[in-house]
């Protein structure tokens, strides 16, 4: 499968331009910066955001940092009971007290940033007890409309669940998804619902231990193991889309549940639709069309911005004076599970102030971290690169660069490839020098003796510096097999006469032009905490699991992870990693700019 460079998810990674240079491919082919990936130690594979399932562990208020139970959170619409947000600048409001001339103390909300307060705003006094706010919301137009839609959706899903043919199942799923989206339920319901959702696809390979490489997509036909995708039966079974007729009917039901206000009697109305004709003339619902009122506004500063309006879902007022403070939305702590084997990857602490994890399987603390120490041209289209590998683990890490893999050696839009790299096994020391057994020690010594100074630049503690030589342009053989788009072999054509600097610090005066603005290529890497070549039978159990013994009792209520043991052969203990480089040519030390 081709790997693909994708934009990093988090703003934090988008802002740091360096974080676009090296991306690690997830098993599903999507590649992200190392900080966004997880590593499942039972599948020995990486998980990206599409290969995990998330569960909400706890709700908390970002301001008072109070843990809120899910029942209480859903009761208050996922908002904090005590904290308020400024309607103007969305800052947190503070409570203040003022005493008037009569000595009566009044409490009010006050924004420390934009000086908004609940006394001067609006015509009548703002009551900030949660009961009156809730009552006000429930009276509002939008809330009533939403409730009506929700009612219909509920009815629909109840109706549908009585029917049990293939086609309705898809509709149930959509209806349930809508229900889940619109209304809040208890945690228990959600969990059982999740189980139902997963039954057809995920549950299947939980039991069969066939890893699902692709993230779950309901629109894709599902393959049962042992059968081909393209049999007639499978096509029929796999694709049961809902027709437009079905969706139209569902849509219509929801439309009918709502009452639309007449906009203006003079405006042309849809005469075919008899539904709206019997509706009584009411106040305007959409005040965008209320030109009279808009013309009355003298100061443009009195109109609320779009962001301010969207924070006021019940009223969506266009006037600043009508804006009201709202309870602060809650944040969540989420635990994450591997989609392949359902093992817990992340289990956060329920205390919102704490940053420790009960379970943490970040790719960042399992995979070798890679930095480019230097990259420069040595000839036209030929470049050498010095990579620093950092081992985050406490034990030795063995790795090699395979010449042949199952899948693709190159990634989408690669414009370069490696032509020379160390082909033997090598190792990186751990953070602590744990010399646990003699055999390993001897093996490491053996590997050390084999090292070639051409590739090995420096080795110190848990870091290793290697030299790679790459060439711009992908070998022609890639384009020969147009249909078969996978390059499983690495082809090496290294020019015979090649000047290699023995010292990294010698400065090459000569400048070269770069063909591309960004040089993109892929390095495949296999690593394991156990030697990849050495067959030591006596301690076959001392695999990765031994370095993190606490993970043995990782079995969770879902429990099925217990049946999925990592494959017993040591050969499959290794992890294949594809590292995608995307280096701007200005980062080369001797590019002609």
């Amino acid at each position, binding site marked *: 499968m081709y790997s693909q460079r994708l934009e990093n998810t988090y703003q934090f990674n988008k802002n740091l331009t360096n974080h676009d240079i090296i991306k690690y491919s997830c098993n599903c082919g999507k590649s992200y910066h190392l900080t966004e990936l997880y590593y499942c130690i039972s599948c020995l594979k990486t998980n990206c955001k599409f290969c995990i399932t998330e569960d909400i562990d706890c709700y908390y208020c970002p301001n008072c940092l109070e843990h809120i139970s899910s029942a209480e959170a859903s009761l208050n619409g996922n908002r904090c009971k005590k904290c308020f947000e400024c309607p103007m600048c969305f800052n947190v409001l503070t409570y203040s007290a003022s005493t008037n001339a009569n000595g009566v103390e009044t409490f009010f909300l006050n924004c420390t940033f934009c000086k908004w307060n609940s006394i001067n705003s609006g015509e009548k006094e703002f009551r900030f007890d949660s009961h009156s706010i809730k009552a006000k919301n429930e009276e509002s137009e939008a809330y009533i409309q939403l409730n009506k839609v929700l009612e219909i959706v509920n009815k629909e899903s109840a109706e549908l669940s009585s029917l049990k043919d293939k086609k309705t199942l898809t509709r149930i799923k959509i209806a349930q998804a809508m229900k889940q989206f619109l209304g809040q339920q208890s945690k228990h319901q959600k969990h059982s619902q999740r189980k139902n959702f997963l039954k057809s696809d995920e549950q299947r390979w939980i039991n069969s231990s066939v890893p699902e490489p692709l993230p779950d997509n309901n629109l894709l036909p599902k393959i049962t193991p042992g059968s081909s995708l393209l049999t007639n039966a499978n096509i029929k079974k796999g694709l049961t889309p809902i027709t437009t007729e079905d969706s139209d009917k569902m849509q219509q039901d929801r439309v009918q549940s709502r009452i639309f206000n007449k906009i203006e009697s003079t405006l042309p109305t849809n005469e075919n639709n008899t539904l709206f004709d019997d509706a009584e003339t009411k106040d305007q619902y959409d005040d965008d069309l209320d030109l009279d009122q808009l013309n009355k506004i003298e100061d443009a500063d009195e109109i609320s911005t779009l962001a301010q309006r969207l924070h006021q879902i019940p009223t969506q007022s266009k006037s600043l004076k009508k804006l009201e403070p709202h309870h602060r939305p809650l944040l969540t702590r989420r635990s994450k599970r591997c989609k392949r084997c359902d093992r817990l990857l992340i289990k956060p602490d329920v205390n919102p102030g704490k940053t420790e994890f009960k379970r943490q399987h970040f790719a*960042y603390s399992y995979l070798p971290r890679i930095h480019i120490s230097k990259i420069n041209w040595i000839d036209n289209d030929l470049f050498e690169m010095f990579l620093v590998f950092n081992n985050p683990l406490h034990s030795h890490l063995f790795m090699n660069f395979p010449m042949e893999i199952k899948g693709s050696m190159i990634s989408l839009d690669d414009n370069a490839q490696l032509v020379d790299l160390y082909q033997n096994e090598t190792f990186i020391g751990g953070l602590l020098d744990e010399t646990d057994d003699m055999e390993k020690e001897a093996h490491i010594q053996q590997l050390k003796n084999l090292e070639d100074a051409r590739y090995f630049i420096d080795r110190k503690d848990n870091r290793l510096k290697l030299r790679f030589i790459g060439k711009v342009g992908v070998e022609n053989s890639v384009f020969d097999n147009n249909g078969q788009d996978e390059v499983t072999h690495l082809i090496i054509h290294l020019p015979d006469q090649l000047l290699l600097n023995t010292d990294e610090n010698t400065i090459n005066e000569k400048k070269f032009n770069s063909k591309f603005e960004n040089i993109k290529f892929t390095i495949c890497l296999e690593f394991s905490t156990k030697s990849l070549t050495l067959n030591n039978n006596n301690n076959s159990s001392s695999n990765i699991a031994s370095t993190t013994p606490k993970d043995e009792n990782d079995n969770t209520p879902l429990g099925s992870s217990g049946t999925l043991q990592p494959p017993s052969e040591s050969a499959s203990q290794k992890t294949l990693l594809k590292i995608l480089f995307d280096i701007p040519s200005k980062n080369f030390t001797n590019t002609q700019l």
Partner: protein
Amino acid sequence: MQTPPTYFEKSQYIETLNGNKVSKSSILCGIMNIRLHGKTIIKPGVIVRGDLATVNIGRLSIVSENTVIRPSSKKFKGSIVYFPQNIGDHVFIGEGCVISAASIGSQVYIGKNCIISKRCILKDCCIIEDGTILPPDTVVPPFTYYSGVPGVYKEDLPDCTDVFQKDYTTSLYESFLPNIPKPSTSGSPIKPVTIS
């Protein structure tokens, strides 16, 4: 890309026994009340107002150029009371910031030109983007990214932020080396700011 090491003039910095590197052109007022817990870098032009209240700065923290660290205050029974200020480990503070927070947790990243107003509480593992202004009494929870004027919650951070930030500040400290090997890499001297 690996960040190339930055070099500093050895005569311009004071190195303490536990690895603190404090620029001579920084202004530390009330030096008795300032406590650096080791391996902390204080760049030129930084002002630390230890004369107002105690300032604690944890290990492997970096305070960049022209930042002001000033303990927060509150009016209490007619007089102004200053609170002691605590800054945790592995904290990076960018250039030109004003930090008056009551406490800053560990593994926090504060970008350039931020204003952290009085009595703010920054918990562990949070990031404040460049140019953010946090209003007084703001609480920044763990694993969140705050930005804007006023600084509001934008999104979550990846779960491995703490490990990443530890790695980042450690590598910054380790690549901050004395003496200049080549004259070309010397940085331009930064003018110290004086208190008016």
